[in-house]
């Protein structure tokens, strides 16, 4: 591996294995996964349900611990960190986007976006401008003081995206970000995600089972039975939809 590659790498996994014990049976969710993501790259992880894609995302975000192997974020091995250190890492270096948005119902859009900074103890004056700018970027001008229940699903997800980027993370992890949206809103969200990702030169790892969503990525990684089967690297910032469909058809065959 060249020095240049290493320098460009934000995220890397080595022999990542996760085994869940369900009663008497061991269920292997991930088996010896080796995979790396470059800075600024938009990677989609695809697979059927039960393929281990969500588990992989959890391990990448330090939400769960691997049975074997290691996750390196900026060269830092996550398993070496304490709970508090991982928490801090998530707060400062990782952004999350969830399928169900997970906004605080008690806070308005501005406050939800600012939440990670608030938790970090920053004063509103420090982040006010940044939050407003982000809300503009996700095209929510005029909705700043709306609560989640006053926003549509797509708008809520845009707030969630703004929240994920507010602390300028190294990497944003998105779990089926369009899974709960209609196709039009879903398309808008993916375009937005792509745009924000470019704008901030942020790495995005997105888990999805939707080939349309995956086609927005720079690279699509296919998982099956906890192992990486293959990957398609796109051109001009897109992976052709047809190519993904072909690969999936081959997978199922």
């Amino acid at each position: 591996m060249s020095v240049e590659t290493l320098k460009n790498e934000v995220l890397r996994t080595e022999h990542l294995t996760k085994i869940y014990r369900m009663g008497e049976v061991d269920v292997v969710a991930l088996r010896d996964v080796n995979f790396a993501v470059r800075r600024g790259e938009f990677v989609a992880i695809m697979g059927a349900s039960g393929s281990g894609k969500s588990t992989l995302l959890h391990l990448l975000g330090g939400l769960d611990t691997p049975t074997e192997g290691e996750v390196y974020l900026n060269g830092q091995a996550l398993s070496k960190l304490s709970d508090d250190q991982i928490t801090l890492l998530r707060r400062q270096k990782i952004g999350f986007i969830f399928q169900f948005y997970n906004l605080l119902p008690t806070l308005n859009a501005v406050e939800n976006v600012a939440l990670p900074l608030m938790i970090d103890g920053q004063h509103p004056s420090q982040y006010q401008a940044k939050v407003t700018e982000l809300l503009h970027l996700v095209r929510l001008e005029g909705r700043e003081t709306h609560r989640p229940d006053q926003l549509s699903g797509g708008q809520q997800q845009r707030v969630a995206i703004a929240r994920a980027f507010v602390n300028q993370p190294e990497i944003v992890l998105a779990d089926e970000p369009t899974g709960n949206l209609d196709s039009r809103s879903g398309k808008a969200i993916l375009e937005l995600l792509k745009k924000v990702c470019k704008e901030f030169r942020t790495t995005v790892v997105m888990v999805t089972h939707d080939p349309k969503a995956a086609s927005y990525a720079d690279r699509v990684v296919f998982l099956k039975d906890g192992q990486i089967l293959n990957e398609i690297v796109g051109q001009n910032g897109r992976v052709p939809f047809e190519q993904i469909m072909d690969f999936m058809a081959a997978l199922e065959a």
Partner: protein
Amino acid sequence: MHALWFIALRNLSQRKFRAFLTAIGVLLGVSVVLAIEVTNQTTIDSLRSVFDRAAGQASLLVIPSSQKDENLKQGLLPTVQSVKGVAVAAPSLRVNTLPADEAGDWQIALNLNGVAVGSFFLLYGIDPALDPQVRVYVLAEGRMPQAGRYEIVLPRKYAEEKKLRLGNGLILLTPQGTARFKITGLLANEGVALINDGVVGFAPLKVVQESFHLEGQLDEIAIRTSETISSKPALLEELKRSLQQRIGKNGDVVYPDSRGVVVSQMLATYQLGLSFFSIIAIFVGSFLVYNTFSMTVSERIREIGMLRAIGMSRKQVLSTVLIEAFVVAFFGSLAGIPLGILLARGLIRMTDAVITPSEEVFSLSVPIILEALAVGIGVALLSALQPAIRASRISPLEALRVRAKSDTKPAKAIWITGFCLIAFGYFVIYGMSWPEHWMFPVGSIAVLTIFLGATLTVTLAIQYLELISRRLAAKAYGSEGRLGSANVRRTVGRTTLTVASLMVSLTMIISINSVATSFKKDMGDWIDSALGGDLYVRSAVTMRQSFGNQLRSVPGVAVVTPTRVLEVRVAPESLPKDTLQNEFYLYAIDPDTFRQIADLQFTDAQADPEASWARLKRGNAVFISNVTAERYRLKTGDRITILTPRGKHSFTIAGVVLDFTGQRGVMYTSYQDLQTYFGESGADRFTLKVAPGYSVDQVAAEIESRYQKRRHISLQSTREFKQSVLNLVESAFRLFDVLGLIGILIGALGVVNTLTMNVIERQREIGALRSIGMTRLQVMRMILAEALAHGTMGGIYGLLFGFLIAQVMVLAMNLMIGYNLSYKFNWQPFLIGLVIAFLVAQMAAIGPAQRAARVNIIEAIKHE
């Protein structure tokens, strides 16, 4: 930190109703704690103030010696005055009497400690020149009486009530008949005018001594010292010592408030009872707080998971929950203060069954308020701690789950622990013996342990009790009733705490009522047998014994027996070392006539009543009350040394008898011993038995017409007396009823809280039920049925533990006071308890049921 406060406050504002309910729970708990603290302090301070007013600015008092039973001799005065450091030595004598015109209607006023303050007219014999230098006399009109003249000063308020004016005469009863005092001055409503609730008068010492045959005798010498001495404790102590040395065994030198402390011990048991209630109120309140925050956390698992995912640390999560608890508790506690003050005013008024409260004393102080605030906030934080810790342990992965975890089934360990705690509590109470000063704290903790254990067993019992409640609910609410009842199984933890808080408050109501019923029953039986007779004839001043013969000659009077009551002191060496109080009531009776009317119940297991009576009649013997026997560890056959006017004399204890007349020691002796050892005769009360064929009213009317004017006597039928005593007991327990109801109110808040939460949580389900055709009314009935299930379970538990705790309380009263109560089952309190449980639960459910009925179907089912 700012962000945590921000998030916590937002959460609260989003769940205003729940926060409000929880705050009300804290508010009620704090108000009870504060009210009881203030009430207890006020009763003590009231008693103190009586002594303080009487003692005024005196720094030291000389009182009758505990070594000799006699009044102080006036001859001691020059000796006291001659001691260096004594600036003023003011002698005084106190006698109980009555204005002659009141004697006919006079009824002795009682409280549980004996005779109530203000029952008699308290006449002070004073030195008009010296006394104003030690006590506060504020003359509103007129002047002080002149030495040697039959003159008196009265509180102006008292004079106004009696329509007396300056220059009028006040005729007071004396052993010879009456004495007339000219009113020379009226006192403003402060200082000495507040003694004995204002039923007091001050006349020259000499004329009081003369009219009451107490020449040369004093009750007290109040001493005022120079300022340098009184302000320095060490110097004052030195003066006290040298004074004591000078007067030797002729008197005791004490600090003015020392007797207040002794008297306050009589209140101790009652106060402990009240304190226990404040613990219970807080206990029930803590359930409410715990339940609320448990719900808040369960409801927000996903949210907290997300916060953890985006970088909130465990400590920050913990702090957020605790900040919420703090805010709720702070405002709840703060609002509890005014309510507590109001409640205290009510409670103090209700304590007059135990002590006559002084209107001017209300012991509210900053430390008491701060203490109540601290208890409220502290308990709330402690109760929220477990939910907060649980919140901090929520994994960030929860944010990614599609559905949050719901209330899980209770672990076996929980209810097993519950049974163990109950068994442990019982063992501590019944299986072990504790020293007296440990009984209250250990007993309280044991009862709380039992409650906690009972709470934990609810987790298991729910599944069985629900089968009962389901039948009831089906009867009351049909098929939606069955549905509603079954719902309580879905949130076991929440149901458990709701049932538990209903249980605890019901248990208290049931057990207090059971104890009161047992108490009244035993007391009624005792009055019937021990006091006996049909009619009492009393006078505020001692009557001649020969008056009994005259009473006997009244047609319809079958038997007359006299009773004389003396206050005597027991030689300290014949009591246990730590005894502070050595004053006893000595009842002199005539065994022969007494036994024709009444009967004493001997409490010794092997007692032979005939032998005991024979021993008493032989002389040189006393019966002691069971309370005395218990407190001073005395038994039949022991000897007790009493300070008689003829010196110390040792009496044989001929028997231990049941007695309910207050907590002061009580002894009985024969008239023969009264004359031999105390040189006393006369009667304070004659008890009459009416012959067959005559009515009590008829005989009473005859006695009144013959003697009332002349003898200043008052009559009361045994029935009336019994009723008045039972009313007294009733009112003593009423206080606890009020507190029990507050407990129930907190329990009701728990029901509201739980049901509201259940309704919110099941919006989607309720929407689905509505969409498949359930009417709004049916939805309401379903929620009411759920509350019915809470009520049934709380009721059944309350009945069971009410029965058990009532017996513990009877035991506690027997152990701590020395009573000989036995628990008697009475279905009434249980029925009342059950009705309360159902009513409270149903009423509390109305709000949540309406809320459920209003659920919008579309909104509910599209809700994620």
